[in-house]
Every structure is written in structure tokens, then in C-alpha cells.
């Protein structure tokens, strides 16, 4: 398990990081607050006081 070149591992890690970061860039976090067509409306992630970043409903 130790015969691999660290450079090769670093190259693989860099490719995966670039890929994952690109996927993350494509994510629209605001969709977390929306409901999905054809599905029951999901409770908003938040206290529902203001639009914007995802909000989280805390239990009383």
C-alpha cells in the first residue's frame, strides 16, 4: 500500500477536488427552501422570517 508515488496521489486528489468544487459551484443552495413539483411541500429550512440563505426550523 505504500508503493504509490505521492505525486500520483496528489494528482488524483487535485482532479477530484476540481471536480467536486465544480459540482458545488453548480449547487443552488436556495433550492433548499423550495418545494418540489409533484411532492408535498417541504418545511422551510428556517424560521421563515426572511428570504435569503437557507433557514432551519428549530424545535420548540
Amino acid at each position, binding site marked *: 500500500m505504500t508503493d504509490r508515488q505521492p505525486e500520483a496521489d496528489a494528482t*488524483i486528489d487535485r482532479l477530484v477536488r476540481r471536480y467536486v468544487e465544480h459540482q458545488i459551484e453548480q449547487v443552488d443552495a436556495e433550492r433548499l427552501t423550495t418545494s418540489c413539483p409533484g411532492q408535498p411541500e417541504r418545511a422551510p429550512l428556517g424560521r421563515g422570517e426572511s428570504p435569503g440563505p437557507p433557514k432551519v426550523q428549530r424545535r420548540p
Partner: protein
Amino acid sequence: MTSTSPSAEQLDAWVSETSRRALGYAATLVRNRQDAEDIVHDCYRRLLAHSDRYDLIRDGTKLLFRAVTNACINHTQRRPAEGSWEQLELSADADQRAMRDPEAAEPSQEAMRRELEEAVGHALAQLPVPQRAAIELRSLGHSLVEVAEMLDVSYANARVILHRARTTLAAKLQPFIEEPRP
């Protein structure tokens, strides 16, 4: 148990900081954006329901990624990913691509970058989910100790899982990463 519970504003900020990353990570694991949203939403809800028990400001990101990882592994074990990797990417890029002129000549570097990215996506998709999770978590900057915690395996096992992932990816991506011989 924490001495002082974080304020709602602090929790909101924490969610804002982590949600895109968590959702992108989950989407790459389950290969279905809608399922990823459901999983991440549920993980946030469960964590925040116990925000008095955990120090989410300090440990929340680690706890969140651990919960998302486990939920994604459980999800894929229950039901194989329905959408193909291409569908995930196409749906995400649909608007951007629609804006482009399909007849326009694409710079070769952009074409190569896209080809490489597709190859990485295909290679990742063929890994068992724990291996995919391990290498993606490492690529996101988590230490091997954290990866072991998130996968709920020993440090030694995490090393083996990561090694297998890298070996498989290296073999599949060899044409893209091999240096041209002089």
C-alpha cells in the same frame, strides 16, 4: 452539552456557510440532485433539533458531513442511483449551455477540461460509495482522522479505503494524467 446555546442568527450563518458544500457533496455521492437535497435537508433538521446537545458552531461541519455521508451510503444501498452521471451534470448545466451557441467553435482548452471532468465523474461514479466519500472528503480538506470518523471506520480502514479509491481512479484516469514521454 454546551454551556451556551448558539443564537438563531449563529445557526443561520452556519447553515448558510455549509449548505452549498454539503449539497454539492451529497449530489456527487447519490448522483441525484433531488435526493441529495432531501438528504441534506433531513440531516440539518436532525442536527438542529439537537442543537442544545451539540456544539454546532464548533463541531457542526464535521457532524453534518458525517451525517450526510452515512445517509448517502444508506440511500445508495437501499436504492441504486437512478439518474446517470450525465443527467446530473446536464441538468445542472442546462441553463448555461442553452445560452451558448452550439455552432460556435469551443476553445480546445475548454473542451479538454470538460472531457477530463466527465472522465473524473465517470470514474468516481464507478467507485463504491464509501471509497467515493473518502476521496471526496479528502479533496474537500478533511483529514484522514476526520474521514475515518465520518465513515465510522478505523483510521487504518480509512487509509485502505482511500488507497483503493486512488488506485482505481489512477487506473481509470491514466490516459489523462500520464505525462507525455520526451
